[in-house]
């Protein structure tokens, strides 16, 4: 519980590894080209898989003729929906704890309606990639094409085209009710009201989806795959109609995920093809296929109205959010819940009314993406804050300082913030770090500055009853083994566990070997999503390692004739603090433990707080374990003739509680900021009536090294997180507030605001024309 530090024999002041900038344990293998990613695996005798995808966004499938493909020499299997034991899997949301009123339909292959362009219809496995590609083209699908619906606001209307078979287009709606917004607005001196729009964003991880699968000697379907969730093994088994323990998923080092490898991608296809052919199979998406077929960040239409008194105190906020879920539900209800709870941002507002809806359309489906519904609303509420400031003649920092939440205050959902809230200092530090304002170099150049703040949760929703497990042991020579089912996205998920075990067990990092991401061999640690792994698996590893440490110190105390609390464990040795000549090696203690049967391994489980479901009528209740707070500041130059934006300075300042590895934290802040910058300026999956017009990285523009300045990362450490050593999560929060900071900076430069992302030159020139 907060405020009550646990008794420890090692303290913050003498951390040796925690909080030190450490080269990551996995970086060496990567820089020498030794790390194997999913596509680098090859199995003798393997086949190549390929997926046939719908060429229409909305259609009925009348018939599928696979006979020509089956006759092609070298084709070993053609699979359509009728060949799949359980083609449809309807899950109540929550992986281990059934909650809520929503059901998510996961359909492996389309057999009735096609709901988006690129939806999978048939699978082929063949002796070569070329044959598989030829075979796909030989499959004849007879479609009855429909006009479809592509705008979520249209899709909500009665009589709109129905995207699914029987379900309503409106997947779910939430409400937050606090106080009386009518009264709040009547007491407001200033009210601003606008509608904001944000686009589809693609994760654009550099590694396209990939995996290999085979059946092992015991008949277990085994997948080696790039995924953020090895625990999809259960769903894969259910699709195949097998017991859960007959499917094993081994996660490879992931070449970037950002939420896009959270839902199932290639897994069920691989499992089906290897199950049908009894041969190993490899399946890798092309970049185009990746863009057409995997999830996107939800576009939102956000109507916001915010009222304040003349001295800048917020009185009322009313928001209506509509998100485009695309063709299938996936994680849309949860993404929307994050947006709904986060709709008021880090501000203390007495009267709040939020209504939100997520809606099916015939666009590519939307689901998890770094920030999970929070960057969208942050763009809206932080734009509103600057609009209010401008009407009230307050600076952007002044108005925020009057309204930031503080520890002990409650969100609009009634949740009281019980940990340190790093406002206003993250905003002040970020702004101050911009330094002296740059001067414009030409008559067409305008310079502007902006800030934005956010709060983003880390850890999964508390009614999902999240858990993680980790195994820690000491080997006979004193080296350490960690087994933990984390998936490593490249954010240092495994490396942080190495640091934690090394710190607690007094060995250098190179003495720790970590095994991750294998459902058969590593204790299950849950998903690498929701910025939860350091919090959950870091705590589980800390708990497991502390128990082993306790046993080591107990045995050492006997051997050194001292009390455990007088001992220090470091550098593979145990020493009596006050008598450094009384010293023994860790290896000798381990041997003594082995000889008297002291168990030198421990599997620990960490449980997040378990809560019940919130009240959906009012939105009142606790949704998240804790939050990470931070701010971005930016200075931009805008050319008023061309509308081109140049980013001059970028600062990210976040309270991470305790940095486990400052180098990794900076990496998250710098990388998250640039990903958010792409969202703000150039990235947009453009669909025309469901047809993707941006299916490659030359059309979908992610920032290059020439598009961004050096991001300055300022890392604060309040020590008040709920992760190991007081850490918070930073993976997702790092990207949330950059887009509004840039939009606010552009508005500061030009005096006119753009309400839709991305802030393209065309929109800027048009906004200037209107003004």
């Amino acid at each position, binding site marked *: 519980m907060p405020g009550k530090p646990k008794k420890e024999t090692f303290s913050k002041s003498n951390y040796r590894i925690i909080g030190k*900038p450490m*080269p*990551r344990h*996995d*970086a*060496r293998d*990567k*820089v*020498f*080209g*030794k*790390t*194997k*990613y999913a*596509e*680098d695996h090859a199995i003798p005798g393997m086949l190549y898989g390929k997926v046939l995808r719908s060429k229409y966004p909305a259609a009925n499938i009348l018939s599928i003729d696979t006979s020509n493909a089956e006759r092609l020499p070298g084709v070993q299997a053609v699979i359509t929906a009728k060949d799949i034991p359980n083609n449809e899997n309807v899950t109540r949301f929550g992986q281990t704890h059934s909650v809520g009123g929503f059901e998510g339909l996961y359909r492996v292959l389309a057999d009735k309606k096609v709901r988006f362009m690129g939806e999978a219809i048939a699978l082929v496995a063949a002796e070569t990639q070329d044959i598989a590609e030829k075979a796909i083209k030989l499959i004849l699908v007879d479609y009855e094409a429909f006009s479809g619906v592509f705008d979520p606001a249209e899709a909500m209307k009665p009589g709109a085209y129905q995207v699914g078979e029987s379900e309503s287009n409106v997947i779910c709606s939430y409400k937050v009710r606090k106080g009386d917004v009518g009264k709040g607005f009547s007491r407001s001196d200033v009210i601003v009201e606008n509608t904001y729009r944000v686009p589809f964003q693609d*994760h*654009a*991880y*550099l*590694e*396209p989806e990939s995996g290999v699968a085979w059946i092992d000697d015991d008949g277990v379907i085994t997948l080696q795959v790039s995924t953020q969730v090895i625990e999809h093994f259960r769903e894969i088994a259910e699709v195949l109609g097998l017991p859960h323990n007959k499917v094993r998923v081994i996660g490879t*080092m*992931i*070449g*970037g995920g*950002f939420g896009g490898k959270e839902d199932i991608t290639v897994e069920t296809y691989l499992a089906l093809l290897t199950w049908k052919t009894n041969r190993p199979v490899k399946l*890798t998406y*092309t*970049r185009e296929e990746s863009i057409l077929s995997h999830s996107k960040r939800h576009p939102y239409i956000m109507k916001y109205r915010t009222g304040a008194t003349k001295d800048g105190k917020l009185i009322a906020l009313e928001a209506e959010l509509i998100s485009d879920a695309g063709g299938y539900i996936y994680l849309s209800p949860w993404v929307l819940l994050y947006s709904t709870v986060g709709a008021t941002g880090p501000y203390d507002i007495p009267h709040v009314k939020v209504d939100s809806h997520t809606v099916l359309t015939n666009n590519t489906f939307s689901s998890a993406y770094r920030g999970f519904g929070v960057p969208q609303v942050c763009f809206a509420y932080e734009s509103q804050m600057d609009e209010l400031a401008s009407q009230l003649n307050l600076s952007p920092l002044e108005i925020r300082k009057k309204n930031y939440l503080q520890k002990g205050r409650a969100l609009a959902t009634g949740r009281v913030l019980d940990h340190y809230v790093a406002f206003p200092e993250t905003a002040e530090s970020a702004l101050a770090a911009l330094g002296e304002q740059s001067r414009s170099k030409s008559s067409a150049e305008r310079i502007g500055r902006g800030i934005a703040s956010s709060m983003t949760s880390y850890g999964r929703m508390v009614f999902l009853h999240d858990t993680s497990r980790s195994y820690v042991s000491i080997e006979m020579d004193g080296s350490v083994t960690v087994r933990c089912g984390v998936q490593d*996205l*490249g*954010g*240092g998920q495994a490396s942080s566990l190495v640091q934690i075990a090394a710190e607690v067990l007094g060995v250098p990092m190179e003495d720790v070997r970590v095994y991750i991401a294998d459902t058969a061999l590593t204790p299950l640690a849950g998903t690498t999503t929701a910025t939860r792994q350091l919090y959950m698996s870091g705590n589980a590893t800390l708990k497991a390692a502390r128990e082993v440490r306790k046993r080591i110190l107990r045995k050492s105390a006997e051997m050194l004739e001292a009390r455990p609390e007088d001992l220090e464990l470091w550098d593979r040795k145990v020493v009596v603090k006050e008598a450094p000549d009384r010293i023994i090696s860790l290896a000798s203690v381990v041997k003594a433990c082995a000889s008297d049967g002291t168990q030198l391994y421990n599997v620990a489980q960490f449980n997040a707080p378990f809560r019940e479901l919130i009240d959906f009528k009012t939105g009142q209740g606790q949704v998240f374990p804790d939050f990470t707070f931070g701010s971005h500041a930016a200075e931009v130059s805008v050319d008023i003739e061309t509308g081109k934006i140049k980013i001059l300075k970028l600062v990210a300042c976040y309270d991470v509680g305790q940095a486990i590895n400052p*180098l*990794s934290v*900076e*990496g998250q802040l*710098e*990388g*998250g*900021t*640039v*990903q958010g910058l792409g969202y703000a300026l150039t990235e947009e999956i453009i669909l025309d009536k469901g047809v993707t017009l941006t299916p*490659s*990285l*030359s059309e979908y523009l*992610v920032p*290059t*090294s*020439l598009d*961004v300045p*050096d*991001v300055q990362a300022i890392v604060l450490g309040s020590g008040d997180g709920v992760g190991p050593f007081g850490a918070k999560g930073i993976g997702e929060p790092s990207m949330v507030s950059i887009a509004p900071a840039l939009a606010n900076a552009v508005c500061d430069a030009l005096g006119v605001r753009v309400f839709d992302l991305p802030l393209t030159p065309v929109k800027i020139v048009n906004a200037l024309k209107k003004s």
Partner: protein
Amino acid sequence: MKTYLIEITLNGEKRKVEVTTRETLLDVLRNKLDATEVKNGCGKGDCGSCAVILDGKAVNSCLTLALQANGKEVVTLKGIGNEEKPHPLQKSFVEHGAIQCGFCTAGMVVSAKALLDQNPRPSRDEIREAISGNLCRCTGYKKIVDAIQDAALEGKS
């Protein structure tokens, strides 16, 4: 399909391999010469993950036909250095935290090596220019630029 026997010097070693007219250098490196350190991120020359040094110049191996590499020298990440003899760029990438997921690393180090071979003391802007064809989705580029600049200062490239 008709195949042709070509010879390339891959990381200092002469290798003979049968290729078709359609195969790219990337296909052949990954599928026939076991050089899986060269990554395929887009297959269209948009991302730079497949960059190799071909006769001293950084190229996207996905846009180079295997036949075009006949008789030429190809250097991949593994040819730049290894654990026993790391290149200063490799040490610097690790120390600076310039590697997150690592999927762009092979192409990044290759582009950086080609730059330092031509220009041993590049400015930050020149470094940014040289790696502008290599996308990185994790780091935001700062630590990569830092790493290359530091390796250049070491002057051992």
